[in-house]
């Protein structure tokens, strides 16, 4: 019998009664908070009806000012919630301060009114309401700290419904003055209803909690910083945006504030629970906040447009797509508040440092990037999500001290595995940079979109594209940071492509063995399709990397069930969805895998429970993270209608959703050869049609491969990986019946790295001998290199377009006044990218208006649409132009043909 006792054995038993109590307390206060919010909303709606527009605007401004005062006041509540005795001891000091400010404000109201254009009435009202607001904040803090939740709920309800009743009644009688008076009276009434026993019996009976002396101050500072984080984007927006844009963002900020308001009480209720180290208190608080955040985000996602139209008018309807994204950021902020409340009791210094940095980064980013409401939404959401990760990370990753960390980093970096992977990654990077090719149509379109202001880009994507916005957002940032050179716009893909090398090692090691991991990483270096998409300024390389990340995270989560693995899985999966909608397919496979594992654990209750909790939690997290995307997708679907997901959206200005889908005519469509071609692409890359036909004819070797699998056994990991290939391809094949052209490997690009892992597994299973393994790996690697070279160099590859060379030559030889006429129409972006200084026009627009003295260059690209139509259009144009000009030149570049006429 082992005497080893683990730390887990020393954990106190979880008391279900305490857990229920913690949950009940949270629910009571949240219910009161939400109800009071509804009361405030009803008061606002009543006031809108009772008051004139001008009076209503003044009342709204007054209420906004109260909210602004409420933000720093909330820090007093936080401090009191953490240490009620602090509130008691400092109450008089705060009261004197508030009273002083109040008297000063009232006394100086006439002068201030002249200086600030704020009416005297409102200034006086603010002066009157200031003391009760401060006292309310302090007293409520005490109630939170002493866990007197009923009086607390009463206080919240009295304030809101006092406003509704008293304010409504007085507004009916006296208009704006009555409304303001009602608000002030309701605040005093609420203060009167907030009965704090003095001195509180709990304080007398309980010893003072062993808190750090500055803890209340730290808590107050923490919530002050959180308040700054919540509101500074609005102030910057007002300062930097034009009136319309600022108003639009103000609407978003208001709704976001409302979302945070719903869970504002959760961290305050948590304070005493966290201080006493009560079991699961933090988890309950986070769960509640996440649930409310999810609900709010989903509701907003589903009703954004009508909500905007109804609440703020049709002119704000256009920013509806931004609402769920912003709410996601606010939900994250709400979560941060909870984590911060927990951290206030343990490590406030690091917490405050993190919040300071986050505020600074947020402010700088807003100032640098904030040029539209969309940019503000993006910056705030990214900052809040990043802050959430930064706050959670120390709990999830137990970080050692700085010195130990440095030592550990050096030790890690000098490990043979790390050095080997670094070498392979360097090789992969070199290969992806050296074997470079020019941008093609889709990439140029992405670049054009990413050059737009953020809001405009998102609007453009929602209106004209068929992909989610994550890659575009990354590209947008990259372009602003590094410009729009070929390397810069492809950098995200290159990095994702290089990251696939260690990721594949990790996945292979996790699923099978380190040997498989090494072979997979080695094969990933020259794998033609991994190289191809790492060189494309599109989302596919990112998708592949995230897919492999999700696989690794899922395996780790299932095996170890640690929080960080579930978080990693949720983040990877959500990011996958934000990268491409077809992420649904691997996601479904992973859910089936979870279900299968759950079934296999049906007799092991603790293991089953752990898995269920993690699985449902990850689903909830993914739901929250992906919910805003649903609105975006709905917009795209509505805007694209017939063209979404592969329709013929080829009108000017509309992204060709399937540009190049028919690139390989020989193997297009769903057929056995089509399936075979997709699998060959996955492993051996894109090639000329004649090569593909020949390679596909070698299918008897597939029989040989199947035969060699006999007797080798079949693991669950292999089933999982085969499903990751087969299910997406099968689903696309089925979908292709209704959406022709969608049966394309790039829409199931996760297939490619998965195929590499399976290939590595196949090689390593052939023999245990190292010599055989090395020879087999070298042989397969050599075959991949041949495929890579043919893919990248062979000009007959229908997917290899050299617009760069063609347009460079045109630019070099063109004379002033020459016109470039291109066909098909969606070459506009690639022509614009490579020849920004030349006069260009689509052939669709006709040849009228080209001066007789000007040279004309006709540029046509093959494989992008029906070759007969293309030939007809170009032929007609050539004949027409030759009435007045002579054909003086003609040259070709891969899949690009150029005629010069003078």
């Amino acid at each position: 019998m082992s005497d080893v006792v683990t730390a887990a054995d020393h954990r106190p038993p979880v008391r279900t009664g305490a857990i229920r109590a913690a949950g009940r307390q949270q629910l009571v206060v949240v219910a009161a908070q939400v109800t009071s919010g509804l009361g405030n909303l009803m008061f606002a709606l009543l006031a809108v009806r009772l008051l004139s527009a001008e009076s209503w605007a003044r009342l709204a401004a007054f209420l906004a000012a109260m909210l602004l005062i409420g933000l720093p006041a909330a820090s007093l509540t936080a401090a009191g919630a953490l240490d009620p005795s602090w509130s008691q001891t400092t109450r008089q000091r705060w009261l004197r301060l508030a009273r002083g400010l109040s008297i000063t404000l009232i006394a100086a109201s006439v002068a201030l009114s002249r200086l600030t254009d704020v009416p005297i009435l409102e200034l006086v009202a603010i002066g009157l309401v200031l003391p009760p607001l401060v006292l309310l904040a302090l007293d409520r803090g005490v109630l939170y700290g002493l866990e007197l939740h009923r009086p607390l709920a009463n206080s919240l309800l009295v304030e809101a419904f006092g406003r509704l009743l008293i304010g409504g009644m007085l507004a009916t009688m006296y208009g704006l003055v009555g409304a303001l008076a009602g608000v002030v009276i309701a605040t005093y009434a609420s203060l009167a209803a907030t009965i704090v026993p003095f001195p509180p019996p709990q304080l007398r009976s309980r010893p003072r909690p062993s808190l750090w002396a500055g803890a209340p101050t730290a808590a107050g500072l923490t919530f002050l910083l959180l308040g700054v984080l919540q509101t500074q984007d609005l102030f910057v927006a007002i300062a930097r945006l034009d009136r319309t844009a600022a108003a639009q963002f103000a609407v978003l900020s208001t709704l976001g504030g409302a979302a945070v308001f719903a869970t504002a009480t959760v961290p305050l209720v948590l304070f005493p629970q966290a201080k006493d180290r009560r079991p699961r208190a933090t988890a309950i608080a986070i769960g509640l906040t996440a649930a409310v955040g999810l609900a709010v985000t989903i509701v907003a996602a589903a009703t954004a447009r009508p909500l905007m139209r109804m609440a703020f008018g049709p002119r704000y309807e256009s920013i509806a797509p931004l609402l769920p994204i912003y709410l996601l950021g606010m939900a994250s902020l709400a979560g941060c508040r909870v984590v911060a409340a927990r951290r206030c009791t343990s490590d406030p210094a690091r917490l405050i440092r993190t919040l300071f940095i986050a505020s600074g980064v947020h402010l700088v980013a807003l100032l640098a990037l904030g040029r539209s409401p969309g940019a503000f939404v993006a910056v705030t959401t990214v900052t809040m999500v990043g802050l959430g990760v930064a706050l959670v990370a120390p709990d999830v990753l137990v970080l050692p001290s700085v010195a130990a960390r440095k030592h550990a980093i050096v030790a890690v970096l000098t490990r043979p595995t790390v050095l080997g992977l670094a070498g392979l990654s360097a090789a992969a990077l070199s290969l992806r940079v050296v074997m470079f090719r020019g941008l093609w149509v889709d990439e140029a379109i992405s670049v054009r979109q990413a050059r737009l202001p953020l809001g405009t880009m998102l609007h453009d994507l929602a209106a004209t594209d068929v992909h989610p916005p994550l890659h575009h957002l990354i590209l947008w940032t990259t372009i602003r940071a590094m410009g729009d050179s070929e390397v810069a716009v492809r950098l995200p893909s290159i990095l994702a492509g290089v990251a696939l090398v260690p990721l594949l090692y990790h996945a292979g090691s996790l699923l099978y063995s380190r040997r498989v991991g090494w072979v997979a990483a080695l094969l990933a270096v020259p794998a033609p399709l991994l190289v191809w998409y790492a060189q494309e300024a599109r989302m596919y390389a990112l998708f592949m990397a995230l897919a492999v990340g999700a696989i690794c995270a899922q395996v780790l989560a299932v095996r170890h069930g640690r929080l960080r693995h579930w978080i990693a899985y949720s983040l990877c999966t959500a990011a996958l969805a934000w990268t491409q909608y077809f992420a649904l397919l691997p996601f479904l496979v992973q859910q089936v895998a979870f279900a299968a594992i759950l079934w296999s654990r049906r007799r092991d209750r603790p293991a089953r429970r752990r898995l269920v909790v993690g699985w449902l939690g990850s689903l909830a997290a993914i739901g929250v993270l992906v919910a805003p995307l649903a609105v975006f997708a709905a917009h795209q679907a509505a805007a694209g209608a017939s063209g979404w997901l592969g329709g013929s959206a080829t009108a000017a200005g509309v992204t060709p959703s399937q540009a190049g889908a028919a690139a390989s005519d020989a193997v297009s469509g769903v057929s056995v050869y089509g399936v075979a071609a997709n699998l060959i692409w996955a492993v051996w890359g894109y090639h000329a049609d004649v090569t593909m036909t020949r390679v596909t004819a070698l299918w008897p070797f597939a029989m040989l491969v199947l035969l060699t699998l006999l007797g080798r056994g079949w693991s669950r990991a292999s089933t999982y990986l085969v499903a990751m290939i087969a299910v997406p391809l099968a689903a696309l094949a089925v979908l292709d019946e209704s959406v022709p052209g969608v049966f394309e490997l790039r829409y199931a690009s996760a297939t490619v790295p998965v195929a590499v892992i399976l290939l590595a597994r196949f090689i390593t299973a052939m023999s245990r001998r190292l010599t055989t393994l090395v020879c087999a790996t070298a042989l397969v690697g050599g075959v991949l290199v041949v495929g890579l070279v043919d893919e990248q160099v062979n000009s007959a590859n229908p997917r290899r377009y050299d617009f760069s060379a063609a347009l460079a030559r045109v630019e070099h030889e063109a004379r002033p006044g020459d016109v470039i006429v291109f066909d098909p129409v969606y070459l506009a972006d690639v022509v614009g990218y490579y020849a920004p200084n030349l006069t260009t026009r689509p052939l669709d627009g006709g040849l009228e208006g080209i001066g007789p003295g000007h040279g004309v260059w006709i540029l046509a690209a093959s494989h992008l649409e029906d070759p007969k139509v293309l030939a007809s259009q170009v032929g007609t144009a050539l004949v027409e132009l030759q009435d007045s000009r002579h054909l003086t030149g003609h040259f070709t570049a891969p899949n690009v043909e150029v005629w010069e006429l003078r």
Partner: protein
Amino acid sequence: MIEDPRVAPVNWDAGAPPKTVRRRAALLSALALLWGLWYFTWLLRPDRVGNPFLFTVLVAAELFNFGQAVGFWLTCVRQPRRDTVAPSLGRLVDVDVLIPVYNEPVEVVEATVDAARRMRGARVHVALLDDGDSVAMRHMARRLGVRYVQRADHSGAKAGNINHALTVTAAAFVAVFDCDHVPDPAFLEQTLGHFRDDRVAFVQTPQYYANNGRGGVTEAAWAQQALFFGAIARGKHTGYSSMFCCGTNVVFRRDALEAVGGFPEGSLTEDFQLSVRLHEEGWRSVYVPRVLARGLGPEDLASYVSQQHRWARGCLSTIPSIVRAKLPSRQKAQYLLSALYFLTGWTVLVYLSLPVIRITTGSQPIAGATADQFLLHFGPYFALSLAALAAVGSGTYTYAAFSLAFSTFWIHIHASVRAILRRPGRFVVTPKHGQRGIQLRPAAPSLVAAGVLVAVAILGLAGDRSPATLNNVAFAAAHVTVLMHGIRSALIPARSAAVEPASTAPQAA
């Protein structure tokens, strides 16, 4: 000194597979069957006929293999739900343990005889039946205290040897072991109980190759054996009551043997022929899926060829008697299925020939169909068949086993031709030790086939690179790969060669 592998622990379980495996195997078999039917409904249409002769030959080969596959699936799908333990016979009986030998190494035989003496559950009377008239054997028998039986007339090979022993022994039950099969002490305890049923003529147990870990031919041959003594034998017994005797690791009821006149001496597979006769007389057979004896499998290609040729020749020559036998149809079908398996080599010859003919003459069996259509119908059928095979065999059947069978296709052709021509066969004892060095002779037919295929592939590539030619070149290359893999151990001898040269002296049948 090489340790005797027969003392090593058994690394194979012959017992009933778990329910999930049975279900998976049944599902895959059903899918393969359905897809196979779909493939044939597509193939057997007039507009598919390219060259009529080639089409006929291809269809015949395909139908033959489909028939074999269906028989295999139907056999294997009938698996026992659990392993049954034999009840006790209720009395202590006498058992004659017969160990026929013919010039095998003494040290190989000694372990068997010694283990036979130690069997529990009956009064054991071990008899060493020496057809080699070896003095060393006689001394060894005397040393171990077992009966040494010698005969003046060596006719009838192994069957004659056992029949002679039956005349000089008298126990109610007779156990037979090949001289290299070391019985487990519990052998009789696990088998005799089945004779409570008076209709049971014999109880067969698996023929386990204890040297299966030596790689090469042994491992591949074992994989074939494991499939037979695993899923197939269990299915034959459970579903069709038609498990036949395999000549060793078996216990007979003397009355049953005497009722059919002992072992038939005119056959190379006397055990198979004997089983037909016993079943014809209404006796029953039992298969105990438990390793109760450990033997040695062929260790080189020559040994394997020798063994397979004897089995093929014997089984094929039994076909007429099976057809004539008054057996229940299910048993007759099972016997025919087993015997006809040895015609599979002809279908391999057809498959090897088709790319050669296509590249050299341009003729091909199938027309009026695109490669895409062919793949759609044939590809899944092929894949599902392999998946079913893998599932049914619980992963025991390997690529090495397949390639060994494929590359020795010529054995079936040779044996069937000799059977048709009624040429007399020779009973060749399977050598017990592998040979050192390259064995060109048993590999020669495969080498010739591979050489022809390589030459034709080069010819094809030199001619044109059309997809059709490339497809046939790929077929040729795949065939060459399988052929060479199958005979590789004959061309590249294993580093750890066996110790003793084999004795392959023929014995008149």
